[in-house]
């Protein structure tokens, strides 16, 4: 459309606005290159230690023999695992995941020989190398979740695999006919796949509550491919790392699968104190 002065303007019309559908197929070559480059940058990279890589390569179907994966997502869940399980000392770092997204920019793999800062770290039990822990503290974007599961579980032997996922969620997101104000927090709820037959030490998460993020992606993967998996979600009113929320996960140690991994109580207390204290010191700017 030409104006009084003759310049051509593009007219914006609501009537031809394709609001929530992105324009496709009309991208220029350059746009396509940028999109492809971005996609490459957002790829999830799983790196295993030389010993694990060797174990994967020597196994008959090139998968790591694995009986148990415990995945903790977020500060409190990873805090629980590091104080109640990792503190026993019989664990070694065996791999990591690096990825890049808008909220986690320094996680891309480095080209130099320095170890890359990773978004998730894998630990392997020294006494039983088929038990893996995965500590995940960083944000994983929606478009990376599927890839995360495919890549991690793609390198594990699934025939006797059992998956446990731990995470926390603000109690304000919990839907209940009563008010969430009167609920005793923190409390645990669980979701499990059809193949998971063991006892769950807490009530199941009832409708209309749902879960999203990495735990949802992992549970979906396990449900679809018939892997026994359970997800424990701790509803809490504290968003930062704190010992009360960490303690709320303790009922999990009553499961046989978890109890044999627990550290002794002296070590637990010591690590718990250290974990909570270090986060407190960082936040006490004015003391």
């Amino acid at each position, binding site marked *: 459309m030409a104006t009084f002065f003759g310049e051509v303007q593009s007219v914006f*019309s*609501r*009537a*031809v*606005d*394709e*609001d*929530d*559908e*992105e324009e*496709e*197929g009309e991208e220029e070559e350059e746009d396509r290159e940028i*999109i492809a480059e971005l996609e490459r940058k957002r790829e999830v990279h799983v790196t295993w230690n030389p010993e694990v890589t060797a174990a994967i390569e020597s196994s008959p179907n090139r998968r790591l023999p694995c009986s148990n994966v415990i995945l903790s997502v977020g500060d409190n869940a990873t805090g629980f695992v590091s104080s109640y399980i990792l503190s026993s000392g019989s664990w070694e770092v065996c791999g990591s995941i690096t990825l890049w997204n808008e909220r986690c920019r320094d996680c891309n793999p480095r080209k130099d020989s320095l170890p890359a800062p990773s978004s998730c770290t894998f630990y392997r039990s020294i006494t039983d190398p088929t038990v893996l822990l995965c500590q995940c503290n960083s944000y994983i974007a*929606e*478009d990376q*979740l*599927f*890839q995360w599961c*495919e890549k991690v579980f793609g390198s594990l032997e699934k025939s006797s695999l059992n998956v446990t996922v731990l995470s926390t969620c603000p109690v304000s997101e*919990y*839907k*209940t*006919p*009563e*008010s*969430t*104000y*009167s609920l005793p927090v923190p409390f645990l709820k669980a*979701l*499990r*796949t*059809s193949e998971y037959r063991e006892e769950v030490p807490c009530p*199941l*998460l*009832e*409708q*209309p*509550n*749902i*879960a*999203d*993020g990495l*735990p*949802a*992606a992992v*549970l*979906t993967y396990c*449900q*679809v*491919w018939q892997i026994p998996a359970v*997800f424990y979600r701790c509803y809490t009113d504290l968003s930062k790392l704190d010992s009360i929320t960490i303690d709320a996960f303790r009922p999990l140690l009553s499961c046989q699968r978890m109890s044999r991994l627990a550290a002794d109580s002296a070590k637990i207390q010591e690590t718990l104190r250290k974990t909570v204290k270090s986060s407190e010191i960082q936040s006490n700017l004015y003391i």
Partner: protein
Amino acid sequence: MFVPIGSEQDFPSDYTLLLPAISVGNVGQLAIDLIISTLKIPKVGYFYTDCLVPMVGSNPYETDEENAKELCTNAEVYALPSQKLAVLQLRSLVIKKKSKSFRQALVSWIKRCAFARVILLSSCHAYHRDDTQLFGTPFRYLVTPALQKSVADVLKELEWKEMEKVSSYPGLNDNEKRVFIPGGGFTKRFYDDCCLEDLQMAVVLKFCSEGDNVPDAFSLLNQVNEWLHLVASTNGDVLAKWKAPGSWQLLFGSGLPAAIF
């Protein structure tokens, strides 16, 4: 990719597939919920895809303590052999930039299963209606050329209205017209894909606004039921025959603290 729960990989070729669009007010998804819950359609598999945001929850259609423990995921397939009906329910959003590959996955699954008909339940922003659309029925349909022949008479008899096409360049050139479904999510492009692939597909949509869209879902389904006869209509209350699933409770959040009163 369709992953069956049992060993049955494919559907008999005379099945009708019902699926929702992720559109304004989630009307299509709510309507699909009503169909599954009312007809008690069993789950037969998952539509495993990287194009939808992951979500899990317990069984939204629970009827007893035992089946309440089942897990539901973001895209599941249900089938009712007695009515030759397959239903795909989508429970989360399509990830940005993955709409195209999601539609491709849907189209290739539909082609592989050779569904006799595909019916997409959708909605469209009410505020985008033009003056003529403000009057009369809020429902519209679209059918692909492949389905047109077999359903034209039925739809004419039902006095359904086809979705009006709008000018591509309003005020400049009114000869060039196109389908326009604002707020319909992937509806329009999926319809275009089905036309290109010569699939027998129809869209049934309602003009609505974001809000409490439960009544929209009921009315869209009553409209669809006139054509497909999913549930025998009774002379009583038209809404009573659809059963809302348990997952619809607390749509507007948790209870309020008693202390505020």
